[in-house]
């Protein structure tokens, strides 16, 4: 936000508000080391026997986390760790993406999904996100063929419009926002 501290703060607040409305939790941490601690504490709290991670998420996952496991390994792991490429304040979404199906399964099949994202990658609106998505989706060696916004946990209201969390995907979504300085 052009080095505008109040603007940056407001943006984070907006993101936090929207993400919480969608049923996610947002925790701000000062740096990567703190993010590792936060994810570790999460795994302990969940008494996670299995933690899975995307290759990018491995940096933040507790020791022993499985990176790139088979479907059976990943399915219903207590915790999955991913890294967001972008966060959108307008909607409280994080943008995940990978051409590696195993990496995608982490956020798809774990019971709880934690996404670590840098506050520097927080943009105000979907229009800003569109610019990034366009360049990532363009043909070329760095093309990202699968990406998507994730906003809150998996949900349905198909029965009597009763909100139920965790249908096919994770039952909880936590966002760890590295604010840096």
């Amino acid at each position, binding site marked *: 936000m052009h080095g505008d501290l109040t603007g940056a703060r407001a943006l984070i607040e907006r993101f936090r508000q929207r993400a919480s409305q*969608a049923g996610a939790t947002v925790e701000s941490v000062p740096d990567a080391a703190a993010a590792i601690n936060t994810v570790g504490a999460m795994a302990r709290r969940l008494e996670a026997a299995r933690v899975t991670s995307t290759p990018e998420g491995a940096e933040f996952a507790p020791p022993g986390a499985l990176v790139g496991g088979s479907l059976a390994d990943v399915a219903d792991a207590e915790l999955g760790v991913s890294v967001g490429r972008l966060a959108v304040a307008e909607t409280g979404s994080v943008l995940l993406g990978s051409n590696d199906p195993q990496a995608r399964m982490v956020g798809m099949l774990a019971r709880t999904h934690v996404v670590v994202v840098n506050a520097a990658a927080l943009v105000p609106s979907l229009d800003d996100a569109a610019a990034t998505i366009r360049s990532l989706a363009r043909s070329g060696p760095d093309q990202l*063929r699968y990406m998507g916004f994730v906003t809150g946990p998996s949900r349905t209201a*198909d029965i009597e419009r009763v909100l139920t969390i965790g249908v096919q995907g994770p039952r909880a979504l936590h966002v760890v926002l590295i604010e840096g300085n």
Partner: protein
Amino acid sequence: MTGISFGARYRKAVQDIQLRTNLLAFQRGWRQSRDERFADYVGPDGQSGEAEFNTLRRQLAGAKDAVIHDQEAVFARFKAAAESNGAIVHQASNPDDATRYILSLCERAASTILVKSKSMVSEEIFLNHYLEAHGIHAVETDLGEWIVQLRHETPSHMVMPAIHLSRKQVGETFTQATGREVSREDVGEQVGLARTELRKDFLAAHVGMTGANALVAETGTAMIITNEGNEAMVTTLPDVHVVLVGYEKLVATFDDAMTQLRLLPRSATGQHITSYVTFISGPDRAGRELHYVFVDNGRSAMRQDPDFVDALRCIRCAACASVCPPYQVVGGHVFGHIYSGAIGLVNTPFHHGLDFAAGPQSLCVSCNACQTVCPVDIPLPRQILEVRRRVVEASGLSATKRAILFVWARPRLFRALARAVAVLGRPVTRNGFLRLPMPARQRWRTPPAPSVRLARARLGTVVEPAATGPLANGGASGKTVAYFIQCLTDPLAPEQAESAVKLLSACGARVVIPQAQHCCGLPFVDSGDARGARQLARQTIEMLESTTADYIVSAANSCVAAIAEDYPHLFQDEPSWKARAERLRGRVFDLATFLDTVARLPAGALTGPSNEVVTYHPFCQSLNVLHADQAARRLLTEVCGIELRELPEANVCCGFGGSTSFDAPDVARGIVERKLSSIDGTGARLLVTDNPGCILHLRGAAHASGRRVQVRHLAEILASRLAARAPVT
């Protein structure tokens, strides 16, 4: 569902109290969430709520129109980009070709299971039936779709396929399907069952199928939105992914896709955004396949039809069903064919044939609510009337309707009959109602008794400005106003016309009452009889032109809407009549708008004692077409000093719907009961509204149900306060 005749489905649905209850709760919840989500979105100009909704939908409609216009080029761009990303693009020549193609993908992958994420196009082309017949088990993985699949039903709503069912019914369905006892109460348990059961199929299938919400041409990307997370598994776990779509899903750029993303979840489920929004631009690894199957199935015909081309903007949010009053009464298995809601009435003739639209379209009450929430501003009400016109053209009108319209088109006969009923009915007339034995289906309303003296006789040909001097120094003073009575008001509610004329005269206008006037033609428009409508419209135009009055005013807002909005459309192929209709349009006013904006009645001009609890229900077209509701409110609150009790769901129709309340009395009854119970909730003893037809309908239903609420036209309330007023100095 589709194998059962419309009549049978209709009769079953109107008996189903559970259905109506489920859908009422759904519609109320939906409306609240939808409105809140638009209220808390602030656009770049600082605008929010409905104003920003209108900006967004203009943007998206414009973007979609450009693509529809330029479809071949946009498709070519999408295809080139998708193919360069390694996808295979197939243009199915017809629905059979599409289903065969998908079957061959399953066979080649040696997959006996096809896992599906939600796709209305697959419903449209009956893909599941075809695959099952060829030994492939198609598994719906969206919870709602899975429920209706297990029940061998079609979705009753495009976004909430099983919204017609209660949790009890879902529990029974799951128990039957799995052979295990599943809770009838615990939705959480039911959802958990879907997770466990469907997981097996995700792991066994080699082919996954989805639709797409948008196809972004600039990069060859499919945007797919879901809440459950099933789509991610469908597109990632199997080796082959097929995207089944109609051409209308194409958008040019990601910017357009984002505009759609702002509108779609808000309109569909009342969310800022869905849990998952996926962008897929090609197969992710060697050995994986990504196929696009494009289906036309009537879309080209729609594109070439100027009356219907705008319907191709549809983004399948189903807001038109979620807001629709008849839909709440009968559900999507009756109000639609495969596609339900207003859009279903409009696209069914193109996808499945006019016959399948004939029954459902007859239930539309023309309240115009659908267009007010449509995120691409499709002129659905007008299109439904055009479907109705085509149905009538193809199959003719019913004998009863022909007889009624025969009389209606003949002013003398019409009035003679009204008089006959008035005279003969006198012995059974009590308080303005005819106390006649009614057939069972009509017993919920007491019919109004016609008056022996018509409004035109009571008013005479000219009413001079009030001798007391004008009520307001506004633009009505010294002007001539031609008053349009309305055919229905003339015998059935003359007091409304008298009140309106009294008010105009009090504002200093000289009021002329053309004695040659009859019917504006609206009952013919409503019935799909365009020829009859044009005939009466021509007579009305000629009659009004001959008055040379400065203004034309009526308290019959339905006629004002017909003259202002339907006439130019009726004469779209007759330029000279169209021009005359458009010239007329500038002079025609509904009473409330006239008193507010032309006569400019000042605050406090009609204050008087008021100790009743009063509530206001705007007639649908006053609200949605004429936008006269604010004027009516101002007249009641500021001019009369009445404190209004807010009516919940004031923007929902009362169920009159012109001829619909006679064609489908059960629907009219269902809707009016919803309205009356809202009125009960306010504790009001007086309901003020602004259209004669609705007033007669509401009075009749209130009377038959033993309610004591008075239903009055705005004109009557205002006029009743004239006696006590002081002239402006």
